[in-house]
């Protein structure tokens, strides 16, 4: 059977991986790359068009927002927020998910009932609704956002890990380890975990893209990070009122979200094909 990865030309996957890397480097080197201070306002440059347009200025290639801040610089710095939240949320969620999933799948019994019950309850919430409810309660901010997303995100790896653990539990090498009197902790960490890691990594790579979109959606709704920190979602929201006469304010940050998320999705598609044949389409 043909896999989806084979449908994506290898070049495209490489290009996507390169784009993801470029975004990460851009975020890391933001102070070096950004032509201007992302928070510096200049009311004389309010809604200045991009460089190639009539009233534009190439010193501000993508134009300026309503406070005369450089959109390019804000996009470069905004990458930090998106990537940071995407990566940190998924890391935390994966760590919790592995622990919970391993315990539930290996120990079974009441541990499994509690974890599975929690998973079932959390799955009962549409993701964005849950995050919106939590953000409304905790207020805006990067840390709150990470928590609001991680509270639900861990369910995804936990389910995968639990399923894989249930399967791994019955394998010969685990049986053997148990027969030799190894402790549960030892078996989970040394025998089960290494064997289930690859699907977990595959899932994590896709989830980063989804978390980035969720972060942007929350910021768009005004429940995101605190200004003047640039976040792509809030930049789109800020520009929304100006689309009639300054389309660039919303358009470019949205494009940045699309490019990053698309690159991650394409690249992770290739990763999942390469790493785990079970994850074919």
């Amino acid at each position: 059977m043909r896999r989806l990865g084979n449908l994506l030309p290898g070049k495209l996957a490489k290009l996507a991986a390169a784009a993801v890397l470029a975004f990460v480097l851009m975020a890391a080197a933001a102070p070096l790359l950004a032509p201007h201070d992302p928070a510096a306002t200049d009311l004389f440059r309010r809604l200045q068009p991009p460089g190639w347009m009539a009233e534009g200025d190439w010193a501000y290639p993508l134009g300026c927002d309503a406070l005369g801040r450089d959109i390019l610089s804000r996009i470069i710095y905004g990458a930090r927020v998106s990537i940071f939240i995407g990566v940190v949320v998924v890391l935390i969620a994966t760590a919790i998910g592995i622990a919970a999933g391993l315990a539930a799948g290996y120990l079974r019994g009441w541990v499994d009932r509690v974890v599975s019950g929690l998973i079932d309850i959390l799955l009962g919430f549409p993701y964005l609704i849950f995050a919106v409810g939590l953000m409304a309660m905790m207020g805006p901010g990067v840390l709150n956002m990470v928590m609001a997303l991680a509270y639900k995100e861990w369910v995804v790896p936990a389910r995968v890990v639990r399923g894989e653990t249930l399967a791994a539990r019955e394998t010969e090498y685990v049986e053997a380890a148990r027969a030799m009197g190894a402790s549960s902790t030892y078996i989970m960490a040394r025998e089960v975990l290494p064997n289930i890691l690859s699907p977990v990594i595959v899932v994590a790579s896709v989830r980063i893209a989804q978390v980035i979109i969720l972060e942007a959606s929350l910021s768009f709704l005004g429940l995101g990070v605190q200004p003047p920190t640039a976040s792509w979602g809030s930049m789109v929201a800020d520009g929304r009122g100006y689309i009639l006469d300054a389309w660039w304010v919303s358009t470019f940050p949205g494009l940045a979200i699309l490019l990053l998320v698309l690159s991650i999705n394409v690249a992770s598609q290739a990763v999942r094909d390469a790493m785990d044949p079970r994850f074919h389409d």
Partner: protein
Amino acid sequence: MRPALLLQRLLHLVPVLLGVTVIVFLMMSLTPGDPAEIMLANQNATPEQVASLRHDMGLDRSLPVRFASFVGNALRGDFGQSLFHRRPVADVIAERLPATIELSAAALIFALLVAIPLGVVAAVHRGGILDRLATVGSLFGVSLPGFWFGILLLLAFAVNLRLLPVSGAIDFAHQPPTVTGFLTIDSLLSGRLDSLGNALAHLLLPAVTLGLPMAAILMRVTRASMLEVLRQDYITFAEAKGLSRARILALHALKNALLPTVTVAAIETGSLLGGNMVVETVFGWPGLGRLVVESIFVRNYPLVQAAVLLYAVTYVLVNFVADLLYTVLNPKVRM
């Protein structure tokens, strides 16, 4: 299905729904900001007035007592007063619900209409140019931030080309008489094609924005399950019997391939329910999602609480029904 199994599944719903309710209740109860003070903001209220309102609203009681009364009232459809409308939350939500249901249904229909044919075509011509295009398209679909895409659609089709309306659900001149509250259904019931056209014109952009990510996911599911079915013996057998390919696809393959699509569609209704908030805000849609977003910013918690609970319960029930359907329809799952 055996009644015992049905009963068992129904019983499983209870702890889930209870858990969901506890979380929603805690979410809003632990939120800083006293609803009584919010209600009396700017009214020159004395501390005594605030205290008496707190008492009336039951805010001076302990958390477990409040939870019990919250559940008791909720079961009777009483979600308290909307702090700003100064009317029962249930009434305010009920007024906005039809618009949201209609939009979600339109988005779902759009997603299925796009996903199933594309998925089938991609599977049948696997590896071909159409398959590749559909694959790339679906990757775009899941990567598009809906709020941004919605703004672009609005700018292009409503503002610049002026082909579609910029905001709202219907123009006054085309309003059908209200029967069900759903504009498209009311238009059909009254036989007013102009109303139907107008309602659909208003629905088009929000439904596309809302349904696109779902369409992308469903397309991939349809494609994958089609591929799976096409490899089955009975298809090969049917081919050997000399049945026409179109007939095989329509009768056998698609029928079996649709089951996973429907199941995933149920799971993905979660993204529709959440996406409502974003899309309704962008398109000025008179539904519940916009109301919830507006309510968050004025700290109208009773309404937010009831809406979040409603969304969650709906989601749980949709998945429950999809699960049942799957069990009933899928010959492979043993009863």
